[in-house]
């Protein structure tokens, strides 16, 4: 009996037991697809979080007013929680802060945008042209804000892609006119699409010159002219620490604060966000992989069960085949092929289902699924291994019985 004849015999034997073979394949298939999809979901979330955070700008430091450490005891003389253009200017100093590359001060206010009959509300950020550099954004249509516009307090605006779409549809917004809280602005450019990062939507914003924003939207009072935040980029990823120190020292000095823990500002490096997020999403992936492993185990136990029962049921057949002249090797070969056929079928269908799911599911649940090769290979190996071991080992034991002992078993 050669391999082809054994394969034919194995195939027929599987076909005769259609329901059982089908259930075995189903068990393998679901286990494998579950692993591929859950691990893919975890990896997808991880990838999305880190790409969103790194799109903030890899060397970014965000300076916000107010202290995180001591909410009540703020050091200071009336200017508590206040960041000013003067602060931003000082940070831009090449000599005082050599490791700081760019500084983008921001005054942010929510505003109503109108163009023709379209209305939309979005955060309007008064800032400088380097904003795009610091925040790792690109102007994809039209031009960025310019120094000249800054100097002349021009009424010009660069739109996030969502704002552009809401107001102007799919047409280019460049050259259009819109009102910000009733004040007309010329649209000069549109930013690239960045997606959401954490809570804030990076595509729903409007950039205008900070001088214009101070002029139009700054509320009178003790905080007039104060900044919402200052974005600072370090010269390289290796100088983030130094840039942090320089910014911290300069601001403490400018704000006349002697005790560092009483600082009235907070500096947050993007890298800490990144590493926190990475830890969280790694934990998520591990959790999902654990769930997937349990799914595989449950599927595997189902497969084991079916295999064990079906081999035990066929000990008599093994005895008869031996009585007619089958060697133990030939008996094993047939069971090996049967298990392998189920394994291959279950594996291929499981991987297919996993891949199709990885394409279709994101459309339904708006979650990214990154298929991981390790998960694909690992789950197929584990599932097929379970099938092989539990399909072949009992057959091996039966093939070692004398034909009569095997024939007598019930």
């Amino acid at each position, binding site marked *: *009996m050669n391999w082809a004849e054994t394969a034919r*015999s194995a195939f027929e034997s599987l076909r005769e037991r259609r329901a059982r073979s089908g259930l075995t394949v189903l068990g393998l298939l679901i286990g494998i697809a579950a692993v591929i999809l859950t691990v893919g979901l975890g990896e997808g979330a991880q990838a999305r979080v880190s790409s969103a955070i790194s799109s903030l700008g890899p060397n970014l430091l965000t300076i916000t007013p107010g202290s995180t450490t001591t909410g009540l005891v703020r050091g200071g003389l009336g200017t508590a929680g206040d960041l000013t253009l003067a602060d931003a200017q000082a940070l831009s100093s090449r000599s005082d802060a050599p490791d700081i590359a760019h500084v983008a001060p921001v005054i942010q206010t929510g505003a109503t945008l109108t163009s023709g009959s379209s209305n939309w509300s979005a955060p309007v950020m008064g800032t400088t042209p380097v904003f795009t550099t610091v925040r790792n954004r690109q102007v994809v249509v039209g031009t960025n804000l310019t120094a000249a516009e800054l100097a002349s307090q021009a009424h010009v605006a660069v739109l996030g892609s969502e704002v552009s779409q809401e107001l102007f549809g799919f047409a280019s917004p460049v050259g259009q006119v819109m009102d910000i809280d009733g004040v007309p602005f010329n649209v000069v450019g549109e930013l690239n699409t960045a997606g959401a990062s954490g809570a804030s939507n990076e595509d729903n914003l409007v950039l205008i010159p900070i001088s214009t924003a101070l002029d139009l939207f700054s509320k009178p009072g003790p905080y007039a002219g104060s900044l919402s935040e200052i974005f600072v980029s370090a010269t390289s990823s290796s100088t983030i620490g130094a840039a942090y120190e320089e910014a911290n020292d300069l601001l403490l000095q400018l704000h006349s604060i002697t005790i560092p823990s009483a600082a009235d500002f907070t500096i947050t490096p993007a890298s800490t966000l990144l590493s926190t997020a990475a830890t969280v999403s790694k934990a998520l992936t591990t959790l999902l992989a654990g769930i997937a492993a349990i799914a595989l185990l449950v599927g595997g136990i189902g497969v084991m069960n079916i295999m064990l029962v079906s081999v035990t049921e066929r000990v*008599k057949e093994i005895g008869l085949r*031996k*009585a*007619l*002249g089958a060697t*133990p090797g030939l008996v094993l070969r047939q069971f090996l092929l049967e298990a392998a056929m189920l394994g291959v079928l279950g594996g291929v269908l499981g991987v297919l289902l996993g891949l199709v799911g990885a394409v279709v599911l994101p459309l339904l649940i708006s979650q990214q699924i990154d298929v991981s090769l390790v998960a694909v290979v690992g789950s197929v190996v584990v599932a097929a291994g379970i099938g092989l071991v539990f399909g072949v080992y009992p057959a091996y034991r039966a093939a070692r019985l*004398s034909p009569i002992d095997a*024939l007598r078993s019930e």
Partner: protein
Amino acid sequence: MSSIGHPRHQSGLALEEMPGPMLELREVTKTYGMGEVEVHALRGINLVVREGEYVAIMGQSGSGKSTLMHILGCLDVPSTGTYLLEGRDVSVLNEIELAEVRNRRIGFVFQQFHLLPRLSAWRNVELPLLYAGRRPRSARRERAMAALGAVGLADRVEHRPTELSGGQQQRVAIARALASNPAIVLADEPTGNLASDQADEILAIFEAMHNQGRTVVLITHEPDVGERAKRLVRIKDGLVVSDGPVRP
């Protein structure tokens, strides 16, 4: 395994009268159940069957006939004693050699038929040919058809065992034993489950095999079946109690 090739008698009277021993049992015992209750199924059997003989084994139920037959068919091994098949001690054969003996030298008909229920009649008969490595498939089919024709089942080749009567199933089992053209045919109560007219047909097949020169050993508990053989061995409680030619 071809020390003795052809199942037919050699020509020449001297050989015809005294052919060599085909099967030889020396003080063979078989004990079942190695616990507190031991069953001594065989208690020292000495038996020589020569080439071309037609032997009937008789005895009461439980006397050890099937046990003896399984040992003769290399399906089980003696607890003690020696079994020589065609002059060779089978206890030295490994699994592969044993498989070859079962496949090529011996055709075995079981008391309970033991057909694979999911295979058609001819596919059941094909099995020993498959393990013999006979190729191509069409040759196996042809051979299986011939064997089924010889037992009068040419019109039932595609039927499954469940679609056949007891006598027809028994004949499929006999065709399977014949398929690989073995020198030795061992049958455990081949007529046990059959009505007497069916039994006659089956016995005619065994007589034909004997006439072809094969060594035939069959078990029966029906005296008229035993009397159609050439030699009668009686067994009681695991021992041979009488052994001699059948008087016509």
